[in-house]
């Protein structure tokens, strides 16, 4: 019985020739990540340990991105705690205001995550780096502390679900529609404890940014990780961004999968997740009544990359955000922000009546920079639409692609770009 791609990476990091689903292993880590919410708890835990410092100051990444620039005094205290820890332990990859970006957009851009890596992060969307062919998974703060102290983490080797991607997507269909469609199909616990392994000839039709979006939301199906094979596009991305050596793993031909699904990109439509679960998906033709919105958010670790901003700009160019709608655009990193400026995207957003924010996770989790009042609705390119996720417990979040969020900002109700004649 062969191994899946994930199992091969885990075996290599556990120093084993072979692992199988269900086996408990201890794996060496290439990177341990934390943010301004989770790191303070991890630092507190690490202080209780009988260790002097981190296992490798180059293999810990601390990214201040959730509530910064500090939204209040308590958040400022959290960041201060992490800043002092980073300084005390000479953490190489500490990113504060001015250098920071949303962690899961920032780390690949900085070349800190490459194919074949085993990565843990105290943030559930750490699974994003599977887009590059790495094993990466979200953990809590205590696991992060243990990872920082020892460079190791224990895992139960996951079984896998194989997702065969075929075909080519139509103009406004992107990675977000692929992953929302998949979550709608298998449910928010459809891949619980498992890997989502994406394969198939259709992958070549997905940009790196599409793949980051898809891997990013693997957790929304309950998955331990989502992972893509390494192809020419992945290699080109890594060569552009990283000087680290990488290793491309492939699943064995006789690897065993619990389930297999096929997604034909050519048949996918713009997909929207209705409140209050990402799996509550509908396509436009299934929406029978106008869903009037108060806010549109374009950004986050899911959809704040340059492809996402370019797509939104194509729709907002020469158009206006509907009066009464707040449209908030958040480039995910400083580099993306600058690129958007140089390409003239920021001008398009501002002329359309949108606001452009410094990189932050802010509104996605109801932190700041776009909190909803009771009864308000937001169309958002973020990743969760749970009760109260973006503010008041009686507000609503609808998840969608940048194309749908931008088109909806123009019409004031949930809309697809085709409604604007695009």
């Amino acid at each position, binding site marked *: 019985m062969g191994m899946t791609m994930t199992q091969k990476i885990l075996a290599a990091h556990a120093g084993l020739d072979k692992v199988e689903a269900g086996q*408990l292993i201890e794996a060496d880590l290439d990177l341990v990540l934390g943010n301004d*919410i*989770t790191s*303070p*708890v991890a630092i*507190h*835990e690490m202080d*209780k*340990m*009988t*260790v002097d410092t981190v296992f490798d100051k180059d293999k810990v990444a601390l990214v201040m991105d*959730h*509530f910064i620039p500090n*939204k*209040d005094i*308590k*958040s400022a205290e*959290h960041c201060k705690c992490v800043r002092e820890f980073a300084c005390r332990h000479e953490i190489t990859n500490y990113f504060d205001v001015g250098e920071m970006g949303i962690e899961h957009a920032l780390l690949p851009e900085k070349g800190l995550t490459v194919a074949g890596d085993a990565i843990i*992060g*105290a*943030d*559930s969307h*750490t699974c994003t780096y599977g887009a590059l062919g790495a094993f990466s998974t*979200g*953990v*809590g*703060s*205590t*696991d992060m*502390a*243990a990872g920082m*102290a*020892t460079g190791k983490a*224990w895992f139960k080797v996951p079984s896998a679900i194989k997702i065969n991607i075929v075909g080519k997507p139509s103009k406004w269909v992107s990675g977000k529609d692929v992953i929302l469609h998949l979550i709608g199909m298998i449910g*928010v*616990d459809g891949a*619980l*404890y498992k890997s989502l392994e994406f394969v198939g000839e259709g992958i070549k039709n997905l940009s790196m940014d599409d793949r980051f979006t898809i891997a990013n939301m693997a*957790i929304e199906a*309950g998955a*331990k990780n989502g992972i893509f094979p390494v192809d020419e596009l992945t290699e080109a991305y890594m060569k552009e961004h990283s000087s680290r050596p990488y290793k491309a793993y492939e699943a064995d031909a006789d690897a065993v999968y619990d389930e297999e699904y096929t997604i034909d990109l050519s048949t996918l439509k713009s997909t929207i997740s209705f409140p209050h*679960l990402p799996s509550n998906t509908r396509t436009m033709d299934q929406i029978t009544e106008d869903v009037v919105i108060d806010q549109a958010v374009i950004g986050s670790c899911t959809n704040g990359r340059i492809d996402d901003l370019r797509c939104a700009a194509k729709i907002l160019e020469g158009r206006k955000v509907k009066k009464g709608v707040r449209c908030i655009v958040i480039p995910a990193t400083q580099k993306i922000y600058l690129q958007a400026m140089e390409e003239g995207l920021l001008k398009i957003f501002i002329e359309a009546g949108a606001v452009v924010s410094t990189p932050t996770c802010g509104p996605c*989790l*109801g*932190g700041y920079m776009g909190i909803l009042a009771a009864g308000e609705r937001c169309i958002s390119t973020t990743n*969760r639409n*749970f*009760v*109260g*996720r973006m503010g008041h*417990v009686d507000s609503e979040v609808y998840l969608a692609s940048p194309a749908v969020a931008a088109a909806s900002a123009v019409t004031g109700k949930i809309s697809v770009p085709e409604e604007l004649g695009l």
Partner: protein
Amino acid sequence: MKANGTVFKYGDNVDTDVIIPARYLNSSDPKELATHCMEDIDKDFVKKVQKGDIIVAEKNFGCGSSREHAPLAIKAAGVSCVIAETFARIFYRNAINIGLPIIECPEASKGIEAGDEVEVDFDTGVITDKTKGTTFQGQAFPEFMQKIIKAEGLVNYINSQQK
């Protein structure tokens, strides 16, 4: 080791945003977090919960964010055990790592109702609904995890390994 308490019952997909909303994550103090535990799904939880009480839920308990603040808030609120049909994987790890006992048992999740008096034996995995006089066999932790639980969390476990 046993847990004894009154049951608070919830359904599928209780997410970490309702267990502890992100608007309170500017604190990492378990006692403070506990004062907002379950607030967006059950406003009365914090008022009613007594030390030792038990949460029983259905599928995918603790889905969503990796915030360890979620099991920390539940534990600090006095809850002695969470029983569910299944747990989201990060919540599962976090609960073990901070020493909040959790147990998977689909039958108990279906058979136990809000307000029932329940006893959980962690060594055997046996769950007893004393109100109804029914028992259920839950999944006891694998040995690997029992070691972490016996050490009262991952940090103590690591410290004991390094001695």
